[in-house]
């Protein structure tokens, strides 16, 4: 394959305006499939999670999964869409063995949700509003493995093996309107958009949203149109390409950047863009030509005669609307402000996936800085050491209780770390660990004073220095006292007492 010539990105932006559109497929995490009661699970042994419906066997009939409809309505609402009073399913006819029926049940002229928008945050914090044309329900297809081709791909394959476990898994396809005005931010916008969709479906709890597992898949449409002089009407939209199966956030960004540079060079050289699908290659960071638009794209849609219209009641829609979580972007902004974190502190927490944990710890009474310190610090360190998720080790309530024990002076940081390990090892709540291990700091001044007097007597030179006003010399005495107390003392209190005793004796 000849390597495509690429125009410099900035140069391409000078000559052309990128026009975008995205189709994102989201696999819903219902317990069963869209139209059959087979488990919605496609790992494991091939062709085990299937029913006659999933194989399209004669006499089998699809029945809509009510939970998938509710998930789809919630997603539509979260995308700012209107929910159709009446929507219906349609057959999309095509011949390919990834579906045994020779058609996919989808929605065509009457999608369940339409006309929304999503605010997407660009890396520099600006918001870009992406218009949503529609979100519709459909079923996923089975998985093909091509055998005999040199690369395991379809070209040169001798035969293909089909596993229908994924066939019938509920999908929502989210289709944007044409997106204008992204300009040089187009690659970042693409990434931020898919990331936002992922955040939304995760916050709704309706999808695992793991891109590497194909729970969330993005097809990226892009075309370029030449810039015109001010005052002139805009040029006609250029021919678009659709880059398929871009399955990481980073790839979405790279694929858009690549296509802008590739198309710009072709157009600048006087060539034309072929309307076609393109395949993204993660390893080389390039796209290659796939299937051109053709007769095969005539899917002969018609209303699915085996299924009835979906007409959600206004009550159901309002119930689902009331249960919507705060939009992720708005939530992030609110929390950052409420917590008073710096950009860096907030990004650390967010990138570590600890926003929820910190928020719940704060809700349980800890200060935001203390919650951040424990989650990003010691808990993350222990999680790393144990090869576990930080969130799985300890509950926000226990972290808040730990912070409260520190704040009250019952624990110092060193002891608190021991208590934390005890909690993680299942010894109980922080207070129970403190009691069981006898870890509380010694708050009995009498015991402290005895230890201090002993230490001062043992180090008369230090005592003299303190009396001369060299307060920093007290460190040696404090160290000795902490050691004598086996660390179970509040260092600040010890310091106070040392100065007091040194002055008084």
């Amino acid at each position: 394959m000849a390597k495509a010539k690429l125009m410099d990105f900035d140069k391409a932006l000078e000559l052309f305006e990128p026009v975008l559109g995205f189709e994102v497929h989201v696999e819903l995490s219902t317990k069963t499939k869209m139209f059959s009661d087979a488990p919605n699970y496609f790992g494991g042994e091939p062709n085990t999670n299937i029913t006659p419906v999933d194989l399209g066997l004669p006499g089998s009939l699809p029945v809509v999964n009510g939970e998938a409809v509710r998930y789809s309505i919630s997603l539509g609402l979260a995308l700012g869409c209107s929910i159709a009073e009446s929507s219906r399913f349609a057959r999309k006819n095509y011949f390919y063995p990834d579906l045994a029926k020779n058609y996919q049940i989808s929605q065509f002229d009457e999608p369940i949700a339409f006309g929304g928008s999503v605010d997407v945050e660009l890396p520099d914090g600006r918001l870009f509003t992406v218009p949503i044309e529609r979100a519709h329900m459909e079923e996923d297809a089975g998985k093909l493995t091509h055998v005999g081709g040199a690369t395991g791909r379809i070209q040169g394959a001798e035969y293909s093996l089909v596993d229908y476990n994924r066939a019938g898994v509920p999908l929502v396809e989210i289709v944007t309107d044409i997106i204008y005005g992204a300009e040089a931010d187009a690659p970042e916008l693409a990434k931020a958009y898919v990331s936002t969709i992922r955040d939304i479906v995760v916050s709704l709890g309706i999808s695992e949203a793991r891109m590497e597992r194909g729970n969330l898949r993005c097809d990226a449409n892009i075309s370029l149109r030449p810039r015109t002089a001010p005052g002139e009407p805009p040029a006609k939209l250029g021919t678009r390409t659709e880059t398929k199966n871009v399955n990481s956030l980073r790839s979405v960004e790279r694929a858009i950047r690549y296509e802008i540079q590739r198309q710009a060079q072709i157009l600048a050289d006087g060539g034309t863009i072929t309307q076609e699908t393109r395949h993204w290659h993660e390893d080389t960071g390039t796209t290659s030509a796939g299937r051109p638009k053709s007769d095969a794209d005539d899917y002969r849609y018609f209303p699915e005669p085996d299924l009835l219209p979906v007409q959600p009641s206004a009550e159901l829609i309002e119930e689902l609307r009331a249960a919507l979580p705060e939009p992720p972007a708005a939530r992030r902004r609110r929390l950052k402000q409420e917590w008073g974190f710096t950009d860096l502190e907030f990004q650390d927490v967010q990138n570590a996936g600890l926003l929820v944990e910190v928020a719940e710890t704060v809700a349980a009474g800890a200060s935001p800085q203390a919650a951040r310190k424990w989650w990003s610090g010691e808990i993350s360190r222990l999680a790393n050491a144990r090869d576990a998720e930080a969130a799985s080790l300890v509950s926000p309530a226990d972290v808040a209780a730990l912070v409260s024990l520190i704040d009250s002076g019952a624990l110092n940081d060193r002891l608190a770390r021991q208590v934390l390990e005890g909690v993680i090892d299942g010894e109980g709540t922080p207070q129970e660990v403190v009691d069981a291990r006898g870890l509380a700091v010694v708050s009995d001044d009498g015991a402290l004073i005895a230890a201090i007097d002993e230490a001062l007597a043992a180090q008369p030179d230090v005592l003299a220095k303190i009396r001369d006003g060299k307060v920093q010399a007290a460190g040696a005495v404090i160290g000795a006292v902490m050691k004598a107390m086996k660390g179970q003392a509040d260092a600040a209190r010890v310091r106070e007492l040392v100065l007091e005793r040194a002055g008084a004796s």
Partner: protein
Amino acid sequence: MSEITQEQVAHLANLARIALTPQEIESLTSELGSIVDNVAKVSEVATDDVPATSHPIPLVNVYRDDVPGATLTTEQALAGAPDHDGSRFRVTAILGEEQ
């Protein structure tokens, strides 16, 4: 008379993967034309306040609970397959593009 053409019939037959002889295309063009004409008569009596109908029974929102049921065993699933490898259906190499 309807405007079904032989080109449309050939196109549809191709999409539906149905091999037709020129004679069959000719006779089907005429037959499909008659069917379309007959169906068009319904439009003449349907007034504007009659919505298009895709289903004859006035039922909506027929849903299933999201509860897993019985599945086929792999043996059952593959029982009718022309070819398989013991766990997966085996099909001839597909020309063209991955969907």
